[in-house]
């Protein structure tokens, strides 16, 4: 407990020193004041000097470990409070048998997982269909009868070469690793017909 109090005092003292120094530096700016200059110009000069010092002090302040520690504690406090209030409202909703935000988030997450699984499957089917297509092309190419050459006089026809037994092409393992293109599946369902409407300027929905 004593340690905590001491630490808190030390931190406060560090901040105090930082800002006291800053204000003292700001006050020193006024030593450069010259009555020979017209007052508005002199004031602007003093103001610029003071703001420069204030900017530097702020930079030092927000980079100090003490500030970062305070920031962390402050944010933790806010998040804990938000969580507490959120839990409270969730209980309230549940007691009246109405869905809370947590439930809606859960549904959205479930839909998202389902979408991912479906897209993975579609991708798999897509790669299988492409593989089949490639194999069919090869089969078609090979089964096409070659044009019969017209035998020339005095030329002996070479013996027909036996076509080597063809193995089915091994399925590329990399096909599944190919760029995860959710796109084709998504595209088909979500792409809208190109909008041809010309607008005078870009319409941007309000945030």
């Amino acid at each position: 407990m004593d340690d905590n109090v001491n630490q808190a005092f030390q931190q406060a003292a560090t901040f105090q020193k930082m800002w006291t120094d800053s204000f003292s530096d700001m006050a020193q700016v006024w030593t450069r004041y010259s009555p020979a200059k017209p007052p508005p110009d002199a004031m602007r000069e003093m103001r610029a000097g003071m703001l420069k010092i204030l900017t530097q002090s702020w930079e030092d302040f927000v980079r100090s470990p003490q500030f970062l520690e305070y920031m962390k504690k402050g944010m933790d406090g806010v998040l804990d409070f938000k969580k507490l209030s959120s839990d409270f409202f969730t209980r309230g909703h549940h007691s009246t048998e109405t869905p809370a935000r947590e439930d809606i988030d859960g549904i959205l997450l479930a839909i998202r997982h389902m979408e991912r699984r479906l897209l993975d499957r579609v991708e798999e089917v897509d790669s299988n269909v492409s593989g089949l297509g490639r194999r069919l092309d090869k089969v078609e190419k090979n089964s096409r009868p070659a044009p019969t050459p017209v035998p020339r006089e005095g030329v002996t026809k070479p013996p027909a070469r036996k076509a080597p037994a063809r193995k089915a092409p091994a399925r590329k393992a990399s096909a599944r690793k190919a760029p995860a293109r959710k796109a084709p599946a998504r595209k088909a369902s979500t792409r809208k017909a190109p909008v041809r409407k010309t607008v005078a300027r870009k319409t941007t929905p309000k945030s």
Partner: protein
Amino acid sequence: MTQAQTPEETASNWQDSMIEEGFANLRRLAAMPFIAEKARKVKKGVTPSEVVYEEDKAKLFHYISDTKPKYKTPLLFVFALVNRPYIFDLKEGRSVIAQFVNAGFDVYLLDWGVPNQAERHLTPDDYINGYLLNAVDYLRERCDSTKVNLLGYCMGGTIATMFTAMHQGLIKNLLTLAAGIDFSTREGLINLWTDPKYFDVDKFVDVVGNVPAEFLQNAFTMLKPVQNLIEKPITIWENSHKEGFIEDFLTMEAWLNDNVPVPGEMYRQWAKYLFQQNLLVQNRMPVGKHIVDLRKITCPLMNLLAERDDLVPPSQSEPLNRLVSSTDKEMIVVPSGHIGLSIGGYAQKNVWPKVCDWLGERD
């Protein structure tokens, strides 16, 4: 050498400057009532466009030109998920898109849309291998081109880089603007604040779901609070009577405050794998079933960085050029901040015409 002023001269100078300042204040005051009216007239985007493709909330815009495109390969713009993409086409004279359209490119922009709680489970895989891949496929079909040029800004630059690494065959040229690649640097405050020691991203996303736009907006404000909360109001006041200043200021502010929430899972993976574990530079970044390997990028690369970028410091983007396998790669360091890189006067005048030429040569 300036001679010392007599007391009479000093008094006279004081008097003149006070009168001048008094009148300037009256002019500023007179301009105030019109600010609200000007704010209502702020336009978002200037180049005529049409929506050519939609998927869920993502929309693909085509920018219409009076003339036929000079270059065949379409150019696709990709922006971050935290702000709206109309920064590319902010206003006349400040539009990157207009620069490319006028240079003869067929320009498209992918707007991710605004996610709601139902989309909290969207991941980088959905964005990169879903929406972006589909948009690229659509463009290839529409433009009868085997490849597209990709330009990404900020987080969009990182997305474009990852996409190119996974689908190099579809990309002709890659252009990145202030793209975060190496997150080990602690120059940027965001990198420091997301350190796993101080930020529990899992707890954060589990509780909030989508990361609220206000949270992101406040985080950006706190990066430079003195500039954002003190200097900015003073600048508005002091320049409010100047022609065009308020219009420019309001257009910029409208965009800066137009943050959008980021889907929770997207944020979780982005923060964890990039900001906390820095997996992209190690070629270990998982995106769905893929592992992003930057060495697979072989296309020409143009990497643009902003010298005074406080959001994505140059040290975070520079490593890209040595991590890719491209032989044709270039890097331009622009003397500007994060936003000035695209819409700043210097970039508009000196950088973008050069980038248009670079891309045109590689069409």
